[in-house]
């Protein structure tokens, strides 16, 4: 648990290196231990086989050189130091009493009090461990005992076993070194990806080359590229919007400034009052623009309504029309609402109110004195959509201008009314959030602009 927690802090490379090396080390140790044990066992077997061979050779030797009266003769002195670790004795047992035929010089000093049993045995006598092999040939009457010092056997066996595993132990650091190199090489595509990601900045969001990425990384690069594309489009929009917004704020500020200065420079009271009046108009226009900008940035941030509620579209439209009543009356515009359906939508009443307010405000703004604004609400023939239509008898737009409606800060007919060019953008955004579609067209009967909002019914 703690290891895996700690591993998370390391780089992928360190992580892989540590995991691979510890696995190799663990299995290397196990393999070495097994190999060592096997080597010891094999050496033991070989020594035992030698002992048995030795005993049989003694029997053959004794048969061939049997001399009835000969007493056991003593052996010549050792030629090799390890000879002291071998001992043997041969008895002739077919006549009573048994007769000692042959024995090594050291056998009396190591022979245990009780004779070892027939076959292999390990016996401790006088502080030393010996391995004995006793062979009894009853037919020919021989009893042969051969023994070997265990300490020597073990030492030799250990040497053999160590020789067996040393190449592996020496190879471990080399293995570690090449493992690190291999992992570094294997992770190179990741490093390249990191480098190219590091070079990105909000100003420079070029897509990353996907051709040379291995197939595990290619989907990541593709996903990143698609994200980068979306981010750079968002940044571009933001940038354009900020530029447009600052541009749009400059003219009203300049107008305010110019009117106030004109009032200061004038020595005529009536003119001063007129200028200050216009300065107030300018301030109102700026307040409207800032309000619209804030609304737009608020609806821009959302991808769906914060709270979905059932909205009675008829009541909402009536409220909004009533709100605009004073506005319409002051221009002597007749505003009417004819609902033909009673749909209940799921949406945000606050946002839908902003949308209706903007549509009605636009219609009244661009309709001359004594004109008409008609609002209608009905279901489509297939009953799957509800359509809210707002038409006016205003100047309308040309076919070419229809395409530009809803673009930010796009003001058509600036000379007719002083809109700020954000209303339809706000309307479109709120429609998008409600999955509704907006269709601009020429109003067939009234002659002005017709705006149709199609809400899907669930």
């Amino acid at each position, binding site marked *: 648990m703690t290891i895996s927690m700690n591993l998370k802090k390391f780089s992928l490379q360190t992580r892989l290196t540590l995991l691979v090396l510890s696995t190799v080390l663990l299995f290397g140790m196990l393999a070495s231990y097994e190999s060592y044990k096997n080597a010891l066992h094999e050496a033991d077997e070989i020594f035992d086989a030698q002992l048995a061979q030795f005993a049989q050779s003694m029997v053959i030797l004794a048969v061939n050189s049997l001399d009835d009266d000969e007493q056991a003769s003593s052996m010549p002195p050792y030629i090799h130091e390890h000879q002291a670790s071998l001992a043997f004795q041969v008895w002739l047992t077919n006549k009573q009493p048994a007769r000692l035929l042959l024995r090594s010089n050291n056998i009396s000093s190591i022979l245990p009090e009780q004779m070892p049993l027939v076959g292999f045995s390990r016996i401790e006598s006088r502080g030393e461990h010996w391995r004995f092999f006793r062979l009894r040939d009853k037919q020919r009457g021989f009893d042969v005992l051969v023994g070997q010092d265990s300490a020597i056997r073990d030492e030799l066996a250990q040497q053999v076993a160590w020789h067996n595993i040393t190449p592996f132990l020496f190879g471990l650091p080399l293995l570690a070194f090449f493992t690190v190199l291999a992992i570094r090489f294997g992770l190179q595509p990741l490093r390249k990806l990191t480098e190219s990601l590091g070079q990105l900045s909000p100003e420079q969001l070029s897509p990353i080359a996907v051709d040379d990425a291995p197939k595990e990384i290619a989907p990541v690069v593709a996903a990143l590229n698609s994200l980068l594309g979306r981010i750079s489009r968002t940044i571009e929009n933001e940038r354009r919007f900020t530029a447009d917004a600052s541009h749009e704020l400059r*003219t009203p500020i*300049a107008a305010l*400034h*110019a009117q106030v*200065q*004109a009032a200061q420079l*004038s020595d005529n009271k009536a003119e001063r009052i007129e*200028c200050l009046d216009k300065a107030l108009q300018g301030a109102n226009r700026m307040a409207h623009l800032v309000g619209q900008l804030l609304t737009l940035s608020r609806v821009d941030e959302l991808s769906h309504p914060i709270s979905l509620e059932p909205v009675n579209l008829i009541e909402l439209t009536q409220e909004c029309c009533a709100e605009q009543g004073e506005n319409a009356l002051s221009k002597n515009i007749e505003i009417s609402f004819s609902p033909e359906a009673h749909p209940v939508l799921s949406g945000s009443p606050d946002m839908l109110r902003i949308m209706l307010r903007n549509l009605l405000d636009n219609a009244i703004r661009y309709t001359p004195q004594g004109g008409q604004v008609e609002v209608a609400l009905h279901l489509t023939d297939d009953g799957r959509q509800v359509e809210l239509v707002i038409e006016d008898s205003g100047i309308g737009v040309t076919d070419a201008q229809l395409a530009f409606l809803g673009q930010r800060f796009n003001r058509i007919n*600036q000379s007719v009314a002083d809109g700020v060019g954000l209303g339809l953008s706000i309307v479109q955004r709120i429609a998008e959030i409600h999955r509704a579609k907006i269709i601009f067209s020429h109003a067939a009967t009234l002659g002005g602009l017709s705006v149709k909002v199609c809400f899907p019914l669930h």
Partner: protein
Amino acid sequence: MRILLVEDDFLLGDGIQKSLSHLGFTVDWMKDGEQGENALTSEEYAAVVLDLGLPKQDGLTLLQSVRNKGLRTPILILTARDGKFDKLKGFGLGADDYVVKPLDMEELAARLRALIRRSAGRASPLVRLGKVEIDPDGRQAWCDGKPVDLSAKEFAILELLMQNAGRVLTRAQLEQSLYGWGDSADSNTIEVFIHHLRKKLGSDFIQTLRGIGYTTGRQP
């Protein structure tokens, strides 16, 4: 001095027209690019204040078009577009100054006077002719080194006559320069102003060519 303002924003155009007229200019105000170009090719202006985002014809198109026709009038671009590229393009098409909104009206007036002065080939803001000296930027006049108190219209006429020393200006030319298209003047207003000027500067400074106009032509 009569200048042309081409600006589509009603409140801004109105404010500039009023402020500049208080600062000694006569301002004709056109609200779209086409009207602006027509006025510029048919009337004579001392300078032009030109907005860029205009209905019917963009300000830069207007600029290019009148410069191609050989118009030498100083043109000041007044716009909300503050990008370097926009500025370079404006100057490249023949603008004499480029000012970003919003700006101070007195600064705008000073810039216009400087442009007009340069286009008349003068470096010093002061204009001297005989015993009379005027400062068009400071709107002050001196006669024999002593300050003379003049009304705005009186100063405008004196300035125009001194800027055009040696030339005869008709009464219609003086009226046009003093009043924009909207204003109307009594037929003898110019004579009243000339009378006042003669009382303050001496009767021999401005000469009358009966039936033709006025000049400051022959100075002792």
